[in-house]
């Protein structure tokens, strides 16, 4: 009897999970549909603000961890970044699918101006993986169930200054030098545009992480990063973690919780 009750309760719980997911999906699609035109307006406003994206991407503390320092020269060429979600037009689309469009300004003699769109889709079929790297069977099962991010490789013209590490141009991959250059090039932001998500461990590292960073943080919060970069006193512009150089204060009062509140307060 108790067992039957437990079974029923667990089944009800499973039903609730489905319902919650459906609501989250529905609400997220609505949210993206309402935000898309606002983001479009924002993109137009950004055009009038000099070096907006250069400022944002320099201010963002995590972005630089994904690319090589040498890439920053070309990161500074970014005129605009734009994220779009197909579900805003087609509500049957997976709301986790999106595309990122980046508009690069050129550098005379080195780098072509270009507009590049990278499309990201959710894949459930793990048999499409060409390299499985270290993924375990369990991890693959989970990927199959939840879906995982993939992308079509997209064409981008590399800067000429990167010719020696451009994986498409490194011919002699058998020498130590060739190997090293190929590997170096694979870590460049430009290699990210070729990322597919289907060759685990063999392409731009953590390409889905960078995509998610654009989608969930850099693009939606760009205005926040831009204004943060304007903080007048330069030394106020530091991360929270570095702010722990506070002086020691002894509790002298009764029921004085200063120390605790310091410890617990954000």
């Amino acid at each position, binding site marked *: 009897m108790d067992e039957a009750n437990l*079974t029923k309760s667990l089944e009800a719980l*499973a039903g609730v*999970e489905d319902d919650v997911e459906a609501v989250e999906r529905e609400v997220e699609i609505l949210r993206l549909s309402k935000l898309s035109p606002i983001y479009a307006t924002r993109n137009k406003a950004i055009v009038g603000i000099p070096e907006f994206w250069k400022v944002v991407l320099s201010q963002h503390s995590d972005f630089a961890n994904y690319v090589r320092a040498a890439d920053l020269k070309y990161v500074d060429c970014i005129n605009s970044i734009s994220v779009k979600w197909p579900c805003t037009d087609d509500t049957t689309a997976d709301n986790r699918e999106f595309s990122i469009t980046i508009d690069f300004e050129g550098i005379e003699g080195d780098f072509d101006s270009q507009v590049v769109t990278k499309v990201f889709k959710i894949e459930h079929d793990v048999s499409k993986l060409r390299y499985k790297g270290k993924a375990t069977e*369990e991890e693959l099962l989970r990927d199959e169930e939840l879906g995982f991010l993939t992308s079509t490789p997209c064409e981008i013209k590399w800067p000429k200054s990167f010719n020696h590490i451009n994986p498409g141009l490194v011919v002699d991959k058998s020498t130590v030098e060739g190997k090293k250059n190929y590997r170096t090039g694979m870590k460049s932001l430009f290699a990210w545009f070729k990322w597919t998500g289907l060759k685990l461990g063999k392409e731009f590292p953590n390409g889905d992480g960078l995509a998610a960073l654009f989608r969930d943080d850099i693009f939606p919060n760009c205005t926040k990063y831009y204004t943060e970069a304007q903080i007048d006193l330069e030394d106020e512009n530091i991360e929270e973690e570095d702010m722990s150089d506070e002086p020691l204060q002894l509790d002298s009062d009764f029921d004085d919780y200063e*120390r605790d509140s310091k*410890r*617990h*307060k*954000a």
Partner: protein
Amino acid sequence: MPNLRELLASVLPELTNYDLLHLKGPSREVNPIFLTRRHDDDALSLVKTQHFFVLSSGNKVFYALELYVYVTVKNCAVTEKLIFVSKADTNGYCDHKLSVRDVTRVILGYITSINPLCYVKDILKLSKPQRDHSKVVTQHTTTRKALKILINRSRASTKYIPSNDILYQHFNQVSPNWTCQICLFTRSEPEYLFSQSSQNPRKHVLSGSALLSWWLSIIDSVMISHFESDIRARLQIPGEEDNATRKYFQSSKLTYWQVGDLFNGKSSDLAVFNIPVFPDDPKGRFLEQLVEGDRARKVQLNEFWAELQIQQEFRLGETVSVIGTEGKLKSSVGRVMAADEVISTSSRKLFNTVKSYITGEDYGTEEGALEAFANLSDFLHLRLGTKLIRIQGIKPMTSQPVNVPELKVGKRSEISRDTVRSLDRTLVRKRQKK
């Protein structure tokens, strides 16, 4: 052989009371601490076990020591037991004058004397068994699938009980030639296991060089009392002249000390195959940097030590050192851990929960030491149905003027804050809002 309680009682002042936590994590098979060239030594496995000791007095936590024991099993027999001393710390809140050096020496001696077979009775296997993923809940199982599995079990009124054989392996032989090693890295830091404790004016932090001498005397004494033959003892101070390093040996009773490391490499060997990587280990992190920088196949041992001192964690002017000793134990040594002198946790999660009651507290004032003790005792009582070990000191007090107690503080190896996550930062209690 005296038990842990008796050992500690002998070094704690008479008529004073203490409470000891000796926490031990599960023994797990782990990847080698030495990078091996692929596919050699298939018959070798390495078993890692974590110990955490906490000493309290007057309902205040004041001392903690963390160490790891690695047992190497080759062809089904134990060939090596390696003790890595990870961190030791005091916070200055002990009201009795006592020798932290003796406490540390006694605990290290106790761990040294434990029969290595104690660690290989129930080893969680490294490779997880093949399981039917439609029936088993694992860390990768989604909520939805886990519910489905639970529903099926409930319907069938069954429980899943994994057979011990597929999860654990066991060994019961020790090679007659087995050796014991002790390794540690010394570096003076204001605090490690007791955060904010450097704000306590009663806490005294040793200089890097005094700390090194402090540890050398402990290791020296453990070697003399427990080891019998084939003894090697090595000290490496990155960036220091050999002659200056040798000066540290002057007060040691052991005659075997030499400048160098324990790991047998010739100076022209590749560092990456001859330097072990321990938890929160600065030289290990440097090794990782070499691998990531594609230099691992180039850097030789002598270059490794030379470059190591340039690393941030080694360069701030304080003496840091790497100590390693090795030998065969006296045949009389070989204790089993009695059930009443250790709290064994079946999972790392539980181990970390207990540990976090100590390491997650704020020791800026005495209140932290009291609160940590209260939480520790309450948790052991409520969740584990056990309690701390009560110890009464029996060491005769020499007539010393009663003074503000000056504790010898064995501070160790905080990794540099800006480069690496500290082990204990992940465990901070009541942490700040994100």
